[in-house]
């Protein structure tokens, strides 16, 4: 922002209008409901100002106000009232329940509060009680099963790992598919690490229509978080503690009958369990490896305020010990927030600082390399793990005068089999991070219908990661003296906006409109140094320092900056408080895109129940529909025609790899991806709104997908960036909730249903291949995006994102399976490009229940996922090594009977697992991820009040992932190898999911 603009803004704030101030008097009183019960937490404001207070538990309030002013009383679910003071010192008010609608105030895009009935799109609110009932170290894990339209995939690993969240399906082929997080109206990164006790409420805006005003970053939907601000006129202290203990929910089942060896012969030192029958077989070493995980989350918050100013401060400490020994996580969160009116109460100033510091120690790897699960699960049957446990998996090496890895099974079988105890002690990965968020906003009440708001937030983060591999670790990638890698990175996101908002009613017509401008600047930098492969090791053994790097060690550095600017406007026009028209528009300039881009949205909602005769059955009917477009700015550097060069470890310049598509004479101008979405929905309330149903249908098409293709041979580049495809996501979201009193028991169940269908509608002709390869190389399945009409679609009209392809069994025209005549083994397709299925679930269904009886509450969440496939590399390896349960059973039966012939078990399992390499029978290792689980359980008791000093004490028994009611896969099918687009639908020697049980305590003072 230029200097003169800043000056102008300051002038505008300072020149607030003057008016005659009347003498302040103190007004006290009591607010009650229509049945006479006192209402607490009712907001009371001097009308037209930000000066206010709220009622206490007895419904009493006290406020200073000019004797000629008015007071406005507002309370959720009740009709607001404005009462002129007329120099009275005592005013009692009765608020009527607002029976006609669920007119709660919702926070929408840009932090503007609107009444829910004017919304033209679907949104789901998740309360802090729901989020905090059964806490986990990462708040996003608690979103699972809480709102329709939300897909949560647990990330790889334990505490500190964020899950993958996708709203309404995957829209971008290779870009980001995860939603934008907006805290108090401002987009922030790193939300996963926030203190969840600071959250007042969380709102999921599933669609692009809700997000249109956030531009590029919000094309995948938005999660809006409102944080606690403190309360006018009272002081509260809240303490929350929880302790949870983890155990593996599910471990692989292995055979214990057959010992080490090959072809039925014993073989000491052989890393296979195809040997003879043994009597000392046991799988205890797997269970014994894990420790009981511990998670402690303690937080304290203080909120206070007088009649004008409010403040809120909190501290939270999260300490976790993962089930993998040595893997620890801790995090500190500090928040301070204050707000006060200034300039004769005309300007409301709000500021906060949020500081997060976290440490992850010794986080384990997953997969084939350096994962402790690999050596643990594949430990040959009959050998004694006790031999390899002492000294942290090491043995004294007299020649080197140091402890080196004690493991006879190290060998390069396209993987690195290492001692799991060595890995957790000598292969370490630490991470330190910190994040500071400064936020300031000023809201100026220009008139009772016009406000101007300026906000700025600076989010500064830094990260420091270190990997250390002790000498004698996996020789395929680690040199004799060990290896070391250090990366220091950091950056900042600086968001600012300025908005003028008008809110006016003209008879039957109401108008709520704003215009604004925003700017976001991202900076990122990193520096990485490390050893380079097996040949480049440290100068001295186990000396993990930059000083120990030598020769052609890895050094990388980057520094990037992106700027995005926009002007936007929106208007909501209401008629008789029942018909609403919503229009938004945004024009955006991005430093990654050549030209400015514009996108609009329009929506309509109709509160039909306003026109229905009063009845006891249908209490609320709202119809809504909206259409929105959102552009998604280009990936950094994609449109650059002359990108800078990198250097290899020898200091040689590496030629340019990917360039924008070049036709020989012309280079294309890449366009931003554009999502066009349409949604319709209905919100229904029955029986005085005790039963509510909302259903939404959406159809979002994302065009001009930006991705890289392999450049044609001889074109002079290896890859080209193109605008090359269209993806459609269609689906239905539904929520049903109910609340009923049975005597002293209140039951409030709710059900969410989510179904999404994804289609690859089109792929550009510039991509001359019949498919786009999203991922290949996991040895079991490939992810292809197929063009409509492709032979590989297997009769389907369209392919879908995360379709899986692999080698399939062959059948004749009568449907009989084909076998090799010589060996009797099943025939497989020649190429691993046969359609197997899709990794995404067909639908999600969850059922949330809450019972209250006197001081007891009981809640549980049953979460289910139907359909969708996961490939398991773990199962493939267990078959290959003769450790899978079925390989033992096959040997018990004398072999595998196929087509009337008995085939030697080892021959058969070598064949179908392809010795754990490519060319396996994919179908054997694909599992249906359908499962129903008790995801959360909480039984709470609130102690009767025994002293005035303590407001409340609540004790709860809590649990997560207690058990599966039903599942098909031999592992938790919701684990994914990672949270990236290409790592879905694949399981590979991951830390097992945890079953957690614990206690929580909440004290309010």
């Amino acid at each position: 922002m230029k200097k003169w603009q800043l000056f102008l803004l300051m002038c505008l704030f300072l020149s607030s209008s003057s008016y005659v101030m009347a003498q302040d008097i103190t007004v006290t009183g009591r607010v009650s409901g229509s049945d006479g019960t006192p209402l607490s937490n009712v907001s009371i404001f001097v009308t037209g100002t930000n000066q206010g207070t709220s009622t206490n538990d007895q419904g009493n309030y006290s406020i200073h106000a000019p004797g000629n002013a008015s007071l406005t009383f507002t309370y959720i679910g009740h009709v607001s009232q404005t009462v002129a003071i007329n120099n009275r010192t005592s005013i009692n008010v009765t608020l009527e329940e607002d029976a006609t609608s669920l007119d709660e105030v919702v926070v929408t895009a840009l932090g503007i509060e609107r009444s829910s009935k004017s919304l033209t799109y679907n949104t789901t609110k998740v309360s802090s009680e729901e989020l905090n009932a059964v806490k986990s170290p990462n708040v996003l894990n608690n979103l699972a099963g809480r709102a329709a339209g939300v897909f949560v995939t647990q990330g790889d690993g334990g505490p500190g790992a964020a899950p993958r969240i996708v709203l309404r399906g995957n829209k971008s082929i290779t870009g980001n598919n995860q939603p934008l997080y907006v805290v108090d109206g401002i987009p922030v990164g790193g939300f996963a690490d926030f203190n969840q006790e600071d959250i007042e409420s969380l709102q999921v805006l599933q669609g692009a229509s809700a997000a249109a005003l956030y531009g590029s970053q919000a094309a995948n939907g938005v999660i809006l978080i409102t944080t606690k601000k403190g309360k006018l006129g009272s002081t509260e202290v809240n303490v929350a503690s929880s302790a949870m203990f983890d155990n593996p929910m599910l471990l692989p089942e292995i055979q214990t009958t057959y010992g080490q060896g090959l072809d039925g012969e014993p073989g000491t030192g052989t890393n296979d369990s195809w040997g003879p029958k043994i009597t000392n077989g046991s799988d205890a070493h797997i269970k014994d490896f894990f420790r009981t995980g511990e998670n402690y989350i303690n937080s304290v918050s203080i909120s206070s305020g007088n009649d004008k100013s409010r403040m809120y401060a909190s501290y939270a400490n999260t300490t976790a010990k993962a089930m993998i020994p040595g893997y620890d996580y801790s995090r500190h969160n500090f928040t301070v927030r204050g707000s006060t009116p200034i300039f004769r109460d005309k300007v409301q100033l709000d500021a906060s600082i949020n500081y997060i510091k976290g440490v992850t120690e010794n986080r384990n790897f997953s997969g084939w390399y350096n994962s402790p699960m690999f050596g643990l699960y594949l430990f040959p049957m009959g050998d004694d793990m006790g031999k390899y446990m002492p000294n942290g998996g090491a043995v004294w090496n007299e020649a080197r005068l140091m402890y080196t890895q004690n493991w006879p099974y190290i060998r390069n079988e396209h993987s690195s089999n290492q001692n799991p105890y060595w890995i957790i002690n000598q292969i370490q990965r630490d991470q330190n991070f910190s994040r500071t968020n400064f936020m300031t906003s000023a809201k100026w009440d220009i008139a009772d219908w016009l406000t101007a708001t300026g906000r700025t937030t600076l989010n500064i983060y830094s990260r420091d990661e270190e990997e250390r591999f002790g000498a004698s670790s996996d020789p395929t990638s680690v040199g004799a003296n060990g290896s070391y890698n250090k990366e220091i990175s950091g950056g900042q996101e600086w968001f600012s906006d300025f908005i003028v908002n008008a809110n006016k009613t003209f008879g039957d017509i109401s108008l709520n409109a704003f215009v604004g401008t925003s700017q976001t600047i991202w900076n990122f930098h990193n520096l990485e140094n490390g050893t380079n492969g097996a040949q480049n090791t440290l100068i001295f053994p186990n000396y993990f320092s930059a000083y120990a790097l030598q020769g052609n060690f890895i050094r990388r550095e980057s520094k990037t900056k992106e700027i995005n600017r926009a002007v936007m406007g929106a208007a909501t026009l209401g008629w008789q408080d029942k018909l609403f028209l919503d229009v938004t528009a945004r024009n955006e300039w991005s430093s990654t895109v050549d030209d400015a881009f514009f996108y609009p949205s329009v929506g309509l909602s109709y509160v039909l129940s306003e026109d229905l005769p009063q009845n006891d059955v249908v209490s609320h009917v709202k119809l809504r529909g909206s259409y929105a477009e959102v552009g998604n700015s280009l990936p950094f550097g994609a449109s650059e025609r002359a990108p800078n060069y990198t250097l290899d470890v020898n200091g040689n310049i590496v030629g340019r790899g990917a360039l924008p598509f070049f036709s020989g004479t012309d280079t294309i101008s890449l366009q931003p991806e554009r999502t066009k979405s349409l949604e319709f929905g209905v919100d229904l309330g029955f029986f005085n709104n005790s039963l509510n149903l909302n259903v939404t249908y959406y159809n979002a098409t994302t065009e001009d997908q930006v991705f890289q293709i392999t450049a044609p041979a001889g074109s002079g580049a290896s890859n080209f960036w193109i605008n090359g495809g269209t993806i459609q996501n269609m689906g239905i979201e539904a929520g049903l909730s109910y609340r009923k009193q049975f005597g002293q028991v209140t039951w409030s169940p709710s059900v969410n249903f989510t179904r999404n269908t994804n289609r690859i509608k089109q792929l550009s002709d510039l991509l001359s291949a019949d498919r786009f390869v999203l991922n290949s190389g996991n040895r079991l399945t490939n992810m292809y995006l197929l063009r409509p009409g492709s032979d590989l679609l297997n009769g389907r009209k369209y392919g879908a994102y995360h379709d899986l392809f692999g080698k399939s069994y062959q059948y004749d025209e009568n449907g009989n399976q084909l076998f090799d005549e010589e060996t009797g083994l099943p025939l497989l397709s020649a190429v691993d490009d046969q359609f197997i299925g899709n990794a995404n679930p067909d639908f999600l269904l969850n059922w949330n229940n809450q019972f209250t009886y006197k001081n007891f509450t009981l809640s549980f969440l049953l979460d289910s996922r139907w359909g969708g496939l996961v490939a398991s590399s773990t199962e493939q390896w267990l078959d290959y090594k003769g450790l899978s349960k079925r390989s033992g059973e096959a040997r018990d039966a004398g072999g595998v009977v196929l087509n009337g012939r008995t085939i030697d078990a080892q021959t058969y399992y070598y064949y179908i697992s392809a010795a754990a390499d490519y060319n396996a029978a994919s179908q054997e290792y694909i599992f249906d991820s359908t499962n129903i689980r008790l995801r959360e359980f909480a039984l709470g008791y609130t102690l009767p009040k025994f002293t005035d000093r303590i407001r409340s004490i609540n004790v709860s028994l809590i649990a997560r992932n207690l058990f599966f009611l039903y599942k098909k896969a031999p592992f938790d099918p919701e684990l994914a190898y990672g949270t990236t687009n290409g790592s879905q639908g694949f399981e590979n020697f991951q830390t097992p999911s945890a079953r957690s049980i614990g206690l929580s305590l909440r004290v309010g003072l």
Partner: protein
Amino acid sequence: MNQKIKSKALWLALAVLATQACTEDFEGLNKNQKHISDQGLSYDANEGGFLLPSMMNNIVSITTSVQTQQNLQAESYAGYLEPPGEFTGNVNTLTYNTRGRWPGSWTVTTNSVMNNWVAMYKNNIQEKYPDLYAIALIAKVFGGHRLVDTFGPYPYEEYGLTAEPKFNTPEECYALFFKDLDWAVAALQAAEAANPDADVTRFKRWDNSTLKGEYTSWIKAANTLRLRLAIRISAVDAAQAKTEAEKAIDPANGGLLDETVGSFGVTNPAGNAYVTMRDAWSDTRMSAAIISYMDGFGDPRLPAYARPATDPALNGEYRGIRPGGKHPAKDTYVNFSLPNFQLTDPVTVMDVAESYFLRAEGALRGFNMGGTAQEFYEQGIRVSIEENGVSGADQYLQSTSTMLPYVDPKTANYSAPVLSNVTVKWDEGAGFETKLEKIITQKWIAMWPEGTEGWSEIRRTGYPKQYHIMDPQNPLLPLGTFIKRLTYPVVQVVNATPAGYAQAVQYLGRDDEDVTFYWMKDN
């Protein structure tokens, strides 16, 4: 009051409008500031040569990318090196199933030699620094002919000038190679004549190769390459071959690689990648044929090339692994003879001894090579023995023993009798084929382990006789047959370049592993 509000609203609206659309500070933002820019490369005239190291490093990759570029293909087909384990269920290039397998044979050289050459061409280096461009052209021909020999048609002529250049036939490509070499040698000779230190000031710092930044040495490498290409087409286009071969040896053109210059190789300062493949990965061992021939001949170079097997079943003898066999348990063959690479060894692109064996064959074919076939044959053997730091050439040149039969103590039916009666000692009275077999066999030993050239010469001459693979996974190449070419990579060519692929298939008839073309023997 009302008036005031109006004026404020107007100010606000102006403020909003003014903040929009300042995009002037976007300039240059879309680049990583810690990577080096074209501007940064213009200083010290670095723009002329900065892409040359990457080109030299990727004719034969000096990193472990060489594994999927040629170690698992040509080096196995040439009978040089063989992995002890299996990859992808033993269905892969080693067992003649090449479609959709590792694309490195295509991508390494195409992306790093051809694409960098075209970047230099587009930066007009041929005008600004013709001598540096000449080095790029030599690297381009070194890389280009290996691609053509491996696959067949290649988009050589219009490379980088259009998004989908035409695929040239191997005949067309060879003609273009000679033209590129003409241009390069002339430019280097001109630069050398104008200023003998031109290479020192402009080029030396870019040259990681054993030619050490000497233009005269690069001229010799270019001439030897011309001779290689000439001999390659000697059976199918004798006239052109004779012209080019005689041009190559003409002293006025700068001469051929010799003992003084040595072999053309490129050193990886990070260490020889074959050492990683051998030790850290246990993925490469000696192949059966190279040991059988050398051991049988009593070759003094054998201890320099290989280490005795440590498997107890082999009693400390040298033993290679039969190519393309089944060995699901890696342990079975992992302790057969290891190749004796040192970390500091350069990766050889062209062995100096080849210069003599090429002349020997030229003389055998009646070209004027400035000497007899026997002279060049024997000199080639001496140079190679000396280059490997061993002695005993005199005795070796008298050797009349044949190769040994292959004995596999692990898998009995992998053993094989003697394939050929060829011996080392020259026999002037013998016929053309016997002499050719001697020359090619000795050249093959000298060139080890550069498999792409070794495999090409086997396909051209049928020598030296090789053990066929034991587990063929390609119905077109049943047991007892040999692979002729690699199929085009599916991603980079079949899918990404349909028009060019159609031209290539039209020329070849089929894109299969058994199809021969141009200079290749038909069986």
